[in-house]
């Protein structure tokens, strides 16, 4: 399921997923998404700016499937690379965050990892650089 307010983005994302062989349902609003989402959907991709704006929909989806053993994975699609966005998404119970733009190859990898590991929080390039530096500093101070 793809819930994106922007019609162009929704159509492109749908086209991308269909190209990869997925069956896709689309929704233009949170209300529509919540009404239509079912256990037939393995993943719900939703647009998110800050993470907090997707929190209510994520919470309501989790509530909808609370009594079921299974539920769709909830993944944020965002162009916002701020760490706080990722943290907000994690805090509200989302299963993943993907940074836009999403190429065909990237989405192929994303779907594969998501469906196998059931979680995927993408790191932005700047965050990766910071983590590499931190790891490098940590290694220098390891006690042998």
């Amino acid at each position, binding site marked *: 399921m793809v819930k994106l*307010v*922007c*019609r*162009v*983005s929704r*159509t*492109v994302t749908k*086209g*991308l997923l*269909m*190209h990869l062989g997925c069956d896709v349902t689309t929704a233009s609003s949170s209300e529509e998404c919540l009404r239509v989402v079912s256990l037939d959907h393995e993943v719900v991709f939703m*647009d998110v*700016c800050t993470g907090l704006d997707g929190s209510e929909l994520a919470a309501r989806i989790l509530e909808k499937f609370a009594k079921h053993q299974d539920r769709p994975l909830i993944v944020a699609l965002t*162009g916002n690379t701020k760490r706080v966005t990722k943290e907000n998404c994690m805090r509200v119970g989302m299963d993943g965050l993907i940074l*836009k*733009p999403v*190429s*065909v190859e990237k989405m192929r990898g994303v779907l594969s990892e998501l469906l196998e590991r059931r979680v995927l929080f993408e790191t932005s390039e700047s965050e990766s650089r910071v983590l590499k530096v931190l790891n490098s500093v940590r290694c220098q101070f390891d006690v042998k």
Partner: protein
Amino acid sequence: MDVGQMQRQWIDYTKSLFLEGFLDGQFLQLQQLQDENNPDFVVEVVSLFFEDSERLLKDLTFALNQNGVDFKKVDAHVHQLKGSSSSIGAQRVKNACIAFRNFCEEQNTDACLRCLQQVKQEYCLVKNKLETLFGLEQQIVAAGGSIPTELSFSG
């Protein structure tokens, strides 16, 4: 002009759109999604972009000409336009929207009006360019040819 010449013209024109910054890699992604199951995908998505952009530009013009400008509303419209232009690879429109959003945050009406003009200009330019591109495609297909699938930027 024979089909081969038209195809070369299409390739050269498409390359120029990338080199001049009108389009970025996301447009290539759209072309990748066009196949026998979805043969008009690019034209359909770009047509949606044209419709949505024109509506948003009208809404922005209205919003910025109010006595008390609602910058939250203005920002929301620009955010949408940034999203849709980014989705089709309209790089210069997207970049103009990024600058626009900065001035929305500052609540600077004059600067926002200037940004709106810039966005309108970039939109008109890319619209003309894409319509020309699609015109070339129609000519190639009408002449019995096919649209090239590979664009090489080397050499």
